[in-house]
């Protein structure tokens, strides 16, 4: 049991070291390759804050989030939206508890985001730049 504890602490520490650099990794916003919309940084911000609900050329936007606490989410919230995790939580609670809106659906990881974006031209998401594939189109890059 003790050994297990030590092991888990060690692995926890290791994972912290391994994961820590990921916080500063590049994050890319992706859409379906068939989506020709060009989006400014301000558009991206408004989309993920639930203020912009259709693409400039028309068509409803379905934005997807990554799970709370994930590094890619933390980086995206900080760099693209300029908010801390608790500020984002406060922001969405204002809308959720007043009937004004709901936060984007949360997906578990980059692969799930890519899969959904590749399937549906309405979907917009973000992933770690290292994981992008040719199934999706990069519309914005954040460092």
């Amino acid at each position, binding site marked *: 049991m003790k050994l297990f504890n030590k092991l888990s602490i060690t692995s926890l520490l290791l994972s912290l070291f391994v994961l820590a650099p990921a916080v500063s990794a590049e994050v890319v916003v992706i859409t379906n390759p068939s989506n020709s919309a060009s989006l400014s940084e301000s558009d991206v911000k*408004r989309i993920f804050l639930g203020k912009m*609900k259709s693409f400039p050329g028309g068509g409803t936007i379905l934005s997807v989030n990554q799970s709370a*606490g994930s590094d890619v989410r933390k980086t995206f919230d900080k760099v693209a939206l300029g908010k801390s995790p*608790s500020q984002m*939580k*406060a922001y969405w*609670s204002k809308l*959720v508890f*007043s*009937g004004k809106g709901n936060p984007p659906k949360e997906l578990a990881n980059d692969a799930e985001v890519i899969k959904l974006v590749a399937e549906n031209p309405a979907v917009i998401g973000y992933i770690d730049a290292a994981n992008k594939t040719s199934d999706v189109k990069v519309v914005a890059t954040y460092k």
Partner: protein
Amino acid sequence: MALFKKLLLVCCLLFSWQASAAEIDFSGFATIAGGLTLDEDEALAGYDDKFSFDNGSLIALQASSDLGNGWGVTAQLLARGSEQWDMNAEWAYVSYDASDNWRLLFGRQRAPFYMYSDFLDVSYAYHWIEPPSGVYSLPFDVFDGVGSIYSSSMGEFDSTIQLAYGRNRDGAVLVGEERDTDFSEFLSASWTLNRDWLTLRASYARAELVIPFDEFQPLLDGWRGTVTFAGIADDLELSDDSGNFSSFGFIVDRESFLLIGEVTKVDPGDNFFPDQDSYYVTLGKRFGDVLLHVTYGEDEDVSDYTIFANVPAGVDPGLDFLLAQSQGVLASVEEDSSFYTIGLRWEVSSSVAAKFEFTKFEDEQPLLAAEASLFQFALTTVF
């Protein structure tokens, strides 16, 4: 047996509902707040000099379901410590998204008077434990009716126009007692403009007011008995009066700084309630997980004594008595108060914030001059 059958029916309905349609999303929020005033004979915001935990505490559960084709249903059940944790529906509505930008709400919802009205009880969403009570002082904050939320972009600004129409007959505590209030033909409009770090908001609301004050009935009968001055009874009575409310607010939330202000004006119509002018200003600064803030506000409620202008003094003892009594009532509801609050919000964990506040309140109204110092703390969360 009948009860059992009913329960069985409800269970069956619930099961078939779940099976046929919908996923139900549950969410909620809670505030556990405690506080005490710092001196023996002081009372403020429901607190006295003995520590209490129930006064500002609340917990709420929200269940909502997407019904498809733009329709949805939401219930928010809220229990307050100050109401013995009785659970009440604060929101209960069916929503319809007429378009991407236009949502209609049918049912019980929040009256959009103030900047923080929509999420008044969600303390986690703002920096104070609760918004300043001088401004946030109207006797009702929900209504049953129809609401419309229209959002659009205007150049660089996001605009939200909110309209509401309905009625509230919940009752309210006014002048120290629970009353059967009726706020009918409630109509409100608010307009919010937001751009990045700047938010501007203006709102207007009106309602027909009927609130019986039995203790003033002898006074009203007295004036009506004079015949000549019967009109004064109408000027005092709170029946079929038209009340008006307007407000303006702004938020500057830029980098680590926060500047917030809200000004409100209440004209309750022709009755013994005074016109109320209130405002507050908040300045805050974030240091990592900690937000320090200071708020100053004033509340001035002034009665209109000109309704007695034609009543001759010293002619008739009965008339003098009525006059003195009536002026006493008007004086007793006036207020000339100010307060400041120094507070701190600390993000303890990813969805828990701890808050500490010290408030100094002073009322300089001659009849009820009072002051109080209050210390409060709270744990707030959303889930």
